[in-house]
């Protein structure tokens, strides 16, 4: 019932998007228009998907037909900077957050999960975009040095979290094992000027060997993190790494929350979200100030920037921003727009 409702609700925006992109030629999907995702035929030889680290996202699917695609993720346990020169032992899908995977409904995804030979732990992957047991977790349980493969058909358009589900799950997620997979609807999302990938996650730390921080189980159980971060590092989107846009452009943020525990009050200071794909699904809300992103959930937010300046990306549960690191920035350049914003009176 739910699925039908989703597909039905999708029909209108889909058709609009499809019409728009038609002029760009090569509308290879027209033959399958109106077909349920489960009945869409993924044709041709499998192709290896290009994945991207945050804050970048791969190119839109546009109006291509469903394909067979291959996704390769490597799980590794690495030391990297978490904040202010301090190192932490992260567990990763390629990096933290994991690589952004972008497919379309009807795609058949062959997912290879390789666990690095020098890993201490076994790892696996549960993709929330999967219809099937454990989201792939059981099928991909990989010992150190081993690779596991499973295949799924993307049926439900939306933005989904993936994460490691190996025991103990809160530790694996708490060490950074999460990322996002976007399943675009037929015809693709409406083109925008800028797209970025942001993932929130909190870190529970204690001093480990050689001054490297590591996971603290007691703090995790108390849900009392030391760090709440975007893209796995304090300042990942500050200074030279600020996100960028120009006045008049529309920005789309793919925002996920790995958790493992906290729910995010996602907000961009000085902007209003024109569109929010609530919970990463199909329902679009408008004129939203702050959107809630649960642990293991996501949202797509879109907004047009009218005025130049620096815009703070925050978790509006504000102690996390002021004291625990949840802060990023978008630098918007261009002409002032006094009609929209100016200092002083009329």
């Amino acid at each position, binding site marked *: 019932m739910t699925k039908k409702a989703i597909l039905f609700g999708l029909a209108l925006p889909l058709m609009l998007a499809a019409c728009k992109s038609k002029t760009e030629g090569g509308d290879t999907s027209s033959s399958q228009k109106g077909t349920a995702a489960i009945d869409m035929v993924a044709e041709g030889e499998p192709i290896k998907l290009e994945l991207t680290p945050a804050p970048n996202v791969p190119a839109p699917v546009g109006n291509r037909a469903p394909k067979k695609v291959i996704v390769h993720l490597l799980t590794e346990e690495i030391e990297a900077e978490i904040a202010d020169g301090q190192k932490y032992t992260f567990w990763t899908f390629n990096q933290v957050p994991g690589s952004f995977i972008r497919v379309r409904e009807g795609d058949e995804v062959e997912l290879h999960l390789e666990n690095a030979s*020098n890993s201490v732990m076994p790892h696996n992957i549960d993709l929330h975009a999967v219809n099937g047991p454990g989201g792939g977790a059981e099928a991909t349980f990989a010992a150190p040095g*081993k690779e596991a493969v499973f295949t799924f058909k993307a049926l439900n358009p939306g933005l989904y979290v993936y994460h490691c589900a190996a025991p103990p799950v809160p530790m694996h997620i708490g060490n950074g094992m999460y990322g996002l997979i976007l399943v675009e609807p037929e015809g693709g999302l409406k083109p925008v000027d800028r797209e970025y990938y942001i993932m929130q996650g909190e870190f529970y730390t204690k001093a480990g060997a050689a001054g490297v921080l590591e*996971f603290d189980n007691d703090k995790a159980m108390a849900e009392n993190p030391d760090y709440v971060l975007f893209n796995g590092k304090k300042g990942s989107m500050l200074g030279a790494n600020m996100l960028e846009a120009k006045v008049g452009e529309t920005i789309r943020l793919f925002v996920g929350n790995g958790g493992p525990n906290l729910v995010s009050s996602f907000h961009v200071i000085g902007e209003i979200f024109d569109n929010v794909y609530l919970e990463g699904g199909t329902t679009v809300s408008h004129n939203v100030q702050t959107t809630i992103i649960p642990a293991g959930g996501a949202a797509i937010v879109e907004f047009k920037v009218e005025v130049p300046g620096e815009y703070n990306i925050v978790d509006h549960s504000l102690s996390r921003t002021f004291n625990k690191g949840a802060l990023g920035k978008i630098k918007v350049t261009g002409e002032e727009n006094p009609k929209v914003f100016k200092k002083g009176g009329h």
Partner: protein
Amino acid sequence: MRLKIAYNLFFILCAIGTGSCTKQEPVPSLNNHSSHQELSQEIVPIESNVKMVEITGGKYLPFYSADDSLVAVNSFLIDERPVTNLEFLNFIKANPSWRKSNVKRIFADSTYLRDWVSDTVLPINSKPDAPVCFVSWFAAKAYANAVGKRLPKLDEWEFVAMADEEMPNAREKSTYSNAILNLYLIKDRQYNAVQQSKPNYWGVYNMFDLIWEWTDDFNSVLVSGESRAGEYGDNNLVCAAGATNATDVLNYAAFMRFGFRTSLKANYTISNLGFRCAQDITK
């Protein structure tokens, strides 16, 4: 004297139970003849000088217990430390069928003794007295037979793992439990020599600080690879405690061990997975 060992071929079922931890039938014993396809290999006995420690048996509450029922462990002998590179080299020299160029893939996968320079030369810069790794369950079993021993049973291993330096059952002590968890987070420990850390109450070294270890029935308890059924479980409360109860953090470390074992197949060879031997007490 030559020991003739019949290896029963069987498929290790890595089917994951629907409950997140369930005790299964143990893996078939090496000495059971079956009507299935068989492969016979001759094992040449070798000397082993490793000291064995007597463990006084008793009852314990295993991680996988679904109803708080205790499991009895008989007294047994266990090697005081893991088998080393040098010891395994001696085994290889006496048993050419276990050299990396000869071993059958069904008994050891492609990374068997991965870093060894050749069939009989240890890896460059490796310590002869570091634990041997990249060995399969089959290879470990063959070694144990060559020295007239066996692999420890899972319950035996976990029984010894309850001890810290002072007492045979330290699972109530959070300091001890946290120490294990800390060790589990450190990489590349397997390259260190054995017996450089303190022994536990029994006089057994290196239970946690170097490697994961094969047990004879490693796949008899399956923690779901998906691993959450137990945590959310409505009646599997010990598993639930394993994941959520702060008062028995030892189970948290055990949870990780059982999770690791569940990811294994008998021909797997892994960078930080080795073994030690055990023996029945015959008096």
